[in-house]
């Protein structure tokens, strides 16, 4: 390699330092919150005077927290299901289809990634108001689907582009109908793409807050919305526990991704 890490001399240590700083910058707030969630101080004093599980007990004792966690899970699960399903169909059209404007259509599918979420949220809010979808699970799922779908389309089109269509043709000549060939051969072969699509769709919905604030009603709130509204009313360390739990699930899912990726490779 032209630019070998070993031969960089003292530059090596500069790189190590920068990497360390960036990692710290990204991780410290999360560690800080996690530490506070175990601290005994009502006023979130740092460093905590002593350690306790009190705030977690309070979290699990309060039906409103549990309810919003459950709502979040439900919505994220539905978003994942639809996002992967629709993303799969769209990807087949975008990769295999031969029609004019295919590239434009693909770019269009990705626009929610660059559109400011607030703009999207206001537009959807106004639109859903007419349809009576605000404050419903359907409204939540549709709104989150808009931001989750680009991740699915991206992950699945990538996987499908890397899959040689001849392999599917071979399955058809082996006697499988075109649909059977897709289910038995193509889908398993692009499994890593479907898996990435599912995880990213889930996470997009799971910790999304801007759209959720617009979609929420007093009776239907996701966990991030509950954290947000609680934060505005009173500052309690339960928020720190809720945040920590939120992050914990995210980390677990990312670990799963890493493990499965390794599995797909070997």
């Amino acid at each position, binding site marked *: 390699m032209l630019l070998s890490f070993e031969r960089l001399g003292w530059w090596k240590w500069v790189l190590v330092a920068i990497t360390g700083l960036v990692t710290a910058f990204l991780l410290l707030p999360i560690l800080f919150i996690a530490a506070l969630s175990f601290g005994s101080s009502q006023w979130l004093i740092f460093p905590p005077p002593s350690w306790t599980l009190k705030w977690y007990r309070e979290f699990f004792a309060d039906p409103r927290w549990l309810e919003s966690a459950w709502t979040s899970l439900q919505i994220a699960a539905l978003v994942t299901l639809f996002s992967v399903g629709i993303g799969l169909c769209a990807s087949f059209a975008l990769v295999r289809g031969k029609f004019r404007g295919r590239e434009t259509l693909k770019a269009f599918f990705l626009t929610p990634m660059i559109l400011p979420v607030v703009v999207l949220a206001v537009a959807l809010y106004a639109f859903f108001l007419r349809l009576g979808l605000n404050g419903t699970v359907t409204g939540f799922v549709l709104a989150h689907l808009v931001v989750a779908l680009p991740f699915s389309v991206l992950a699945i089109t990538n996987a499908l582009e890397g899959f*040689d269509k001849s392999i599917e043709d071979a399955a058809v*000549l*082996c006697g499988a109908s*075109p649909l059977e060939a897709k289910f038995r051969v193509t889908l398993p*072969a692009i499994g890593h793409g479907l898996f990435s699509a599912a995880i990213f769709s889930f996470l997009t919905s799971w910790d999304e807050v801007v759209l959720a604030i617009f979609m929420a009603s007093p009776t239907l709130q996701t966990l991030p919305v509950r954290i947000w509204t609680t934060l505005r009313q009173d500052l309690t360390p339960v928020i720190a526990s809720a945040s920590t739990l939120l992050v914990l699930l995210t980390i677990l899912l990312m670990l799963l991704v890493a493990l499965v990726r390794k599995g797909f490779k070997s």
Partner: protein
Amino acid sequence: MTAPYLHIRGIRKDYGSVTAVENVDLEIRRGEFMTFLGPSGSGKSTTLYILAGFQDPTAGDILLEGKSLLQTPSHLRQIGMVFQRYTLFPHLTVAENIGFPLKVRRKGRAEIDAKVRDMLRLVRLEGFEDRKPADMSGGQQQRVALARALAYDPPVLLMDEPLSALDKKLREEIQVEIRRIHQETEVTILYVTHDQEEALRLSDRIAVFSKGVIDQVGTGPELYANPATRFVAEFIGDSDFLTCSVLSSDGRTADVRLGSDFVVPGVPVHGGGGGRSAGALLLRPERISLHRHQPAEAGTLPVTVGGLTFLGSNVHVAATTGWGEPVAVRLPFGHGAIEGLSRGDTVWLGFDPRATHVFC
């Protein structure tokens, strides 16, 4: 004559304004090994894909034992195929890959296992049952692909340049295997290649493709000894062409003149009408005799030696005619006529007019 087993009848395929193949007519016997030989882009794969049902022809028909295949979708045609690219199912083991066609036909477990074992023996890959495609070499993958394509005893097997990604030595090894498997299974094979040596080695008959049409169909020796077009002559075996003018022609043989005064009488003629016209005289380097002194009998062509190339068992002599056209002679190593031969020497070339051809 009985009806052919597989009949490709007047196939034409247009992609927009591009005609990929036209007038493809072939009658293939049961158990025959037929090769489509031609350069890249000549329409070999297109023809094969029409047989497989991946493309619909613009015109023409495909008949298997007298019945048209065109209305039958690919997966019901019972045709086996080995592709140019590696197409094993990446998530399945070797055994599962070979058993796949039987599994989609809802065969029982015991039958599948027995067949997989047979097929692995056929392609000499016993013990590879549990390997994944990614852990095998290209040659092994293509052999598994062959086993998979043969697992349900298809009447016709299509192979689209299955060895083109392999190196020469491995290619020759697998050619021998394919030949043996063809003899053992008696399956009818349509094989595509751009490699004349591969075609000659494997085939019962060869169809030579050029720019979307079949120039000639025949056994290797037929194509070599009696090429119908200049293209076929160029594609099969080594060849040199000398420009000549046709002095007279009766449609079968012609008298031609090389240079200003060297006349070759009675040369088989292909194409063109009667009368005077320009043509190209085909000479095969290994069918020319080389004389150091002008022989007594007439009909030898004086040329100037340009250089010698040692090619193992053969020596290649490059020479130039009096009017400046290149011509080559190939002689076995150690042949008396080349001893002490050097650049600039004049030698005389002798050839049998009946073994040459003129194309006009």
